[in-house]
């Protein structure tokens, strides 16, 4: 059996899968982009919530699932994103739709000094450290007037520059921004992980010391992921409040944002790109059905987190993916010893 003939069938099979996958994504994307023309306003707002949660979850997944950075302080950047939107839109008279992108960038810039502080800590203490940083941002925002910046204090602010836009224009724009953030976060994760950074991350995940010894700049890689995640969370935060219009510090900097990210990623499957997507769907459905039960709903979420920690480390996608060896977003690298395999 020559090498040529054994290559052909395998390649064709791969090709088919790729084409099928591509078509699937194209259809889904097409449907999603045209949503404003076939869904109600309420349905659109739901989807905004869905896609922004997805974006947040993908960011947390990048941090914890790939870079080993367990953060319980991502709410810092949600709040920074929201208030940046306010400052740029209302105070600097920048169009809100442009301000959203800039808000993400501001969050990314601010994340650098926070990394300088947070990265002095490791593991669980790093996690709490990120929470402290979030508290600091919250308190600074709350007491902003003491530092000469009026951010509305405890009463919060309304993003008038957005509120004054024509209603359906604002609705459409917000939706497409949310879709962009959600799809973009998935794409960003996918591309990042397929790049050299992704390879470095895999090496770091396996054995940090060994990675360092072969020349991987561990610190720079982690900071890169930290900044990217801050950008994503900041952008998502701006979109969320573009939708809600009313920003209050206690809500914007609420640790529950991170709690939701954690639950989504852990339920769906950490360390995979498919996981957060599944997790967001499940979380969203759960929230629609059960949030009326208030405290009991959260107790259920907490129990699921514990169950995932003890018994179901890989989440739902972990179980499915292992059984059927499925990959919607192939980012793993395989060493092939046989041609065409």
């Amino acid at each position, binding site marked *: 059996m020559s090498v040529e003939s054994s290559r052909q069938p395998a390649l064709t099979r791969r090709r088919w899968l790729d084409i099928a996958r591509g078509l699937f994504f194209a259809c889904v994307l097409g449907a999603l982009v045209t949503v404003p023309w076939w869904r109600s306003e309420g349905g659109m707002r739901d989807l905004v919530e869905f896609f922004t949660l997805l974006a947040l979850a993908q960011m947390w997944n990048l941090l914890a699932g790939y870079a080993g950075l367990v953060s319980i302080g991502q709410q810092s950047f949600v709040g920074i994103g929201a208030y940046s939107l306010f400052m740029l839109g209302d105070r600097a008279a920048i169009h809100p739709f442009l301000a959203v992108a800039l808000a993400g960038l501001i969050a990314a810039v601010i994340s650098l000094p926070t990394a300088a*502080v947070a990265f002095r*800590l490791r593991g669980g203490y790093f996690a709490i450290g990120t929470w*402290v940083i979030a508290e600091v941002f919250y308190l*600074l925002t709350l*007491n902003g007037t*003491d530092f000469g910046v009026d951010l509305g204090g405890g009463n919060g602010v309304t993003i008038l520059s957005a509120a004054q836009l024509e209603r359906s224009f604002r609705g459409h724009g917000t939706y497409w921004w949310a879709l962009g953030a959600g799809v973009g976060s998935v794409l960003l994760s996918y591309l990042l992980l397929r790049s050299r950074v992704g390879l470095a991350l895999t090496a770091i995940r396996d054995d940090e010391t060994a990675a360092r010894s072969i020349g991987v700049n561990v610190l720079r890689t982690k900071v890169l992921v930290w900044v990217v995640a801050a950008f994503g969370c900041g952008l998502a935060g701006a979109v969320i409040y573009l939708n809600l219009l009313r920003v209050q510090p206690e809500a914007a900097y609420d640790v529950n944002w991170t709690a939701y990210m*954690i639950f989504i990623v852990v339920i769906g499957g950490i360390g995979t790109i498919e996981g957060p997507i599944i997790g967001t769907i499940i979380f969203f459905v759960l929230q629609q059905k059960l949030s009326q039960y*208030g405290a009991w709903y959260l107790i259920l979420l907490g129990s699921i987190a*514990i169950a995932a*920690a003890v018994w179901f480390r890989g989440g739902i996608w972990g179980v499915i993916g292992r059984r059927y060896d499925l990959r919607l977003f192939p980012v793993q690298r395989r060493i092939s010893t046989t041609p065409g395999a």
Partner: protein
Amino acid sequence: MVWLNQVVQGLLLGGLYALFATGLSLVFGVMRMVNLAQGDLIVLSSFLAFVLAGDLDWNPLLTLVILIPLMAILGFAAQALLLNHTLDSDLAPLLATFGLSVIIQNSLLEHFSGDTRRLHAGAIETESIRVTGQISIGWFPLMTFLVAVGLLVALQLLIRRTQIGRSLRATSDDRRAAQLVGIDNRKVYGIAAAISLATVAIAGVFLGVYSNFSPTSGPSRLLFAFEAVIIGGLGSPWGTLVGGVVLGVAQTVGAQVSVGWGDLTGHLVFLAVLLIRPRGLFARPELV
């Protein structure tokens, strides 16, 4: 003079923070696990004391007789049944204790509503020693500080002079080698968790008398405990006391400058220590 009084108050507050932090650093020292539910467990103890004091018509401090063994058993059980299964991963213990934190907070909310409560220990709450015109030392804060010191001394004795303390130190050093001398790691971890929760019980009762508490007070207690540990330096119990004092003083002085600035000043001082002296003031070299 007002400032000096604030410093004194902060000093005594440090004792309370040291109480919060003791359980956290013990568990971290032995099993490298950070208990994200620490603050909520403290608040849980406050509520349990509230219920017991009410039902039995006891002084809340007396309820410690029941609470300490109760929380110790709870700690052992949680560790043995749940947390021991998470120690092979970096994320899993954080996830499990985070889940625990959410469950405790919301169970308390469900049962007690969001109102704040207070434990009443009688006249000792408000009595104070007048040192000078502007400086007074409350009896209860002083008692809290002394209890914190006493607890640290007791723990030091336990760790350094007893067989169980040797087993704890050995397991913390090298858990495989500890297995080779017949030490069952899971039991050791369970005992560490039990001791930790016993200190949490004490912290909870003293917190409840010291100030108001509500089902959502947990997280900020966790943050303060954590800051006290980091400022003082990992692995140093006396460092934790100093860390608590530094934090307490920062908070009370900050609050004197402007009412809303207390917590913020504490956080900023913490961040400053982290930047300038990341190992804390008294870190043990091997641990960092």
